[in-house]
């Protein structure tokens, strides 16, 4: 298996960080909204939303970085 080129790795990192920023921001926003509307301005919905967003971004990033080293079924069948 060949290692990733630096350019490809850089692009993947850019995608990861951008995706992480979007998901964190969205989770934080939703958490604030829910906290204000339904949960009497408690802190935990904000923490939960931002944590969930960060976790989803981490999982996506992990999958993206690992995908280079995985042999897909289509290629295996060929």
């Amino acid at each position, binding site marked *: 298996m060949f290692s990733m080129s630096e350019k490809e790795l*850089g*692009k993947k*990192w*850019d*995608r990861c*960080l*951008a995706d992480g*920023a*979007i998901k964190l921001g969205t989770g934080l926003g939703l958490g604030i909204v829910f906290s204000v509307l339904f949960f009497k301005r408690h802190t935990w919905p904000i923490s939960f939303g931002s944590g969930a967003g960060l976790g989803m971004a981490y999982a996506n990033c992990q999958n993206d970085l690992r995908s280079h080293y995985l042999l897909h079924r289509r290629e295996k069948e*060929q």
Partner: protein
Amino acid sequence: MLKVTAGTSVMSGRTFLSPFTVFAAAAAGDGERGASVPLLQLEDLSLYAAAPRESSPASVEPEAGELEQSVATLRKLVEPYTAWCQDTYNTIEPRVQSVLQRGYDTYAYLQNPPKDFYPRAGVIGFTGVLGLLLARRSRAKRLIYPAGLMSVSASLYYPEKAAAIVKTAGDSVYERAVHSYAAVEKMLNPQSKGEKVTGSETKP
């Protein structure tokens, strides 16, 4: 997709040597299995060239948006610092691993110690307590006396290891003294070194 079916003469151990006929059926739709399908000869199949990939939208990467481009520029700005952090981590990590390994080895040693280990450890600890008792009313003595007496008693029980430690410690102290002397000399006399260099250059 092509479906390949082999003839009855194919299934033998010498498939590469004996001639055989492979019939390949072209793609057939649903409900058309009974219909006659054009058969291809072996030479018509490409064994060594990969089939042309269908261009799917999933394989095409989307263009980088504005956020991604700004993240890329930020990453390039921060790249020297991240490289420094990586280098520092690569130098520190083996040392931490070696310290952890020493801890595991010590634990394993203490699980099955030699026969005389605990009595000797008791005597060495007693000399340390004796040093603390002797060093009253002085903080410096409280550090020096116990350490000195413990090292003396340990060297009596383990003379070879003590000699090896003293030798390596002496070598490293000498080396550091030489380096520090050179650094101090360089700091105090930078001009004289510059003159020496220019003087050697002007000479034919």
